[in-house]
């Protein structure tokens, strides 16, 4: 990470799910933790999310999904980031993610999943420890 540069994060809602309390709270929280945060709003396709990630030159992509479509959408974002040459991005997820889905998501390149009960500070620390410099 460049000297003095704030960590840049895009928080996105892939798919059709409209529950955005967690995504918005995290966006506001990470801003207070000193990061630059872009919130995409609802109904983003993986393509649009990756486009935003590239345009905004982010270090982290945070994906939120509560509709059960995470197994399709999260890996697709990772795939597209790779094919667009943005492999240095830390991809994380949250929402309603059953425990049993987490290992497969991690295999497919989602670095971490933070769901209900996780604190903003824990997530911020994780990002600081794991963001690719």
């Amino acid at each position, binding site marked *: 990470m460049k000297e003095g540069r704030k960590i840049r994060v895009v928080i996105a809602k892939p798919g*059709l*799910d*409209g529950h*955005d*309390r967690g995504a918005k709270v995290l966006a506001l929280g990470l801003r207070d933790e000193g990061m630059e945060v872009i919130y995409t709003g*609802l109904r983003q396709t993986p393509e649009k999310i990756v486009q935003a990630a590239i345009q905004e030159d982010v270090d982290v992509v945070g994906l939120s999904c509560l509709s*059960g479509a995470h197994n399709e959408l999260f890996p697709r974002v990772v795939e597209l980031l790779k094919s667009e040459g943005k492999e240095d991005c830390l991809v994380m997820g949250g929402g309603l993610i059953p425990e049993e889905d987490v290992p497969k998501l991690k295999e497919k390149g989602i670095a971490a999943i933070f769901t209900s*009960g996780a604190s*903003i500070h824990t997530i911020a620390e994780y990002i600081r420890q794991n963001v690719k410099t």
Partner: protein
Amino acid sequence: MLFNQDESEKIARAKKDWEEGLLKRQLERFGMKEPPSRTYTPLDLRDWDFLEKVGFPGQYPFTSLEYPTPLPERLPDTASPAIFLAGAYAGYGTVEDTRDLWRAQRRRGANVAFDLPTQLGYDSDDSISKGEVGKVGIAVDTLRDFEVLYEFLDGVTTMDQSASNFTINAPCNIILAMYIAVAEKKGVDPAKLRGTPQNDILKEFVARGTYIFPPEPSMRMVRDTITYCTKNLPLLNPISICGYHIREAGATAAQTMAFTFADAIAYVQLGIDAGLDVDEFVPRFTFLNFSGSMDFFLEIARARAARRIWAKIMKERFKAKNPRNWVISGLGAAVEGRYCYTTQRPINNLARGIIMGVASALSGGRPSGGVPYDEPLGLGHSYEGTQLSVDAARIMRYEAQLGEVTDPLAGSYYIESLTDEVETETWEIINKIESMGGAVEAIRSGWMQREVAKSAYHYQREVESGQRVMVGVNRFTGENELTVTTNRLVPHPYDPKKREGAEARQIANLAKVKRERDNQRVQSTLKALYQVAKDEKENLIPYFLDCVKAYATLGEMCNALRDVFGEWEPVGIL
């Protein structure tokens, strides 16, 4: 005026003596800077007027209760958990999957959950629907799907003896058209149809997210529902105005009420602007509940204030003549906030549900055990959770006799002060919204959305700092704490195989309909819809009926409307 001047002064002097004597010594003795609890006295209700503030049950301002007495209990003693589960909001996969589930549950009415593509006006074969078809509810693309769904009533009862709730908002009138068309096919007079589509599009912009079109054309379609139902479907409620989602998205109690009532004011105005008399259509306006929190006393006060505020709005602002139309119809009493339930040590949620059940009883509602304790653990409440919740309500009702007195806290120095406080705060926000130009404007500018996000963030900060205690989450989490578990028997895990396979099956169903329908007829009905959508004065429901009967798809109809209305692109919401 509760107490005369002399009495008040006497109490004020006595209070001063107490504060400077007993209280001071207590604080010193235990090294406390502040008293750990507050005390209320008659001084807090100095200018209070019983008839103005509370009155009698079923009478303006309805603070204690909407009706002169609680309504009689309808469920027999033999009601089992299965009966409660049979009324629950449900739906998954294809309509065949849900029809079969409902048959197995012996349902006599529908409480329909639609999948996200349906709620958002996309067909199951749309690329944007990939991975989402049949996940959070049933996939409905054409009338054929509704015909199959309503087979659940065959041999059980007829559609005019049954009611249907549809949790559908943006494409509400299309679903309504399907409901009417199925009834007609079954030889049932649509005028006998009962039910409630949710149809509260404003809260979608603020909290729930299933909007399609911008606010104005969306409101035009709610106007269509109100006028069409008032004229043709006299037993159907055109709307269920929701505070619930706004609260669950993070708004405070007062914000939730203010935003909901501002929305409601906008909806009532729709009917008036369409030339209807307020007493004609408001009888069928319903409200969903306002969700809740663990702030026990606040929720009691909030419920009482809600009744009073709506009564004032209907009587003083809209000048409804029939006193029945001053009543908030729906669940005004306190309920639990589901976001207060925890996945950590979940059986504690039973305690939370019961606490709010007591609040409900003390705010004029029916005591309820709350949503079953396993709500946060996944789809489907267990039989155990349901039984515990139902029995908790019975214990509150019959053992603790919590229904014996209506609004037992009326007159309490604390509760009446708090009710007034919540009411005042709510009016301030309502007036602020009105000064912005009303709910639609407050939403278009993103103001309401930003307020909700700010409150949600504030709440999270309170939890993370420990200021807001969540037992088992941010406090009392040491190694000596136990996670008590039960063996949950969830009666209808939505069959995971069916759920996974639903998308492919529905795409095939849809393809078949498209092959077999008269595509020319579809095109002409869609064209007519497109043309008439441009004229704001036209009611679109008859045109939806034509499209629906031609087996046009939900996506085709919504795309025609997207061409006219555009899609809503929110800005500045965070």
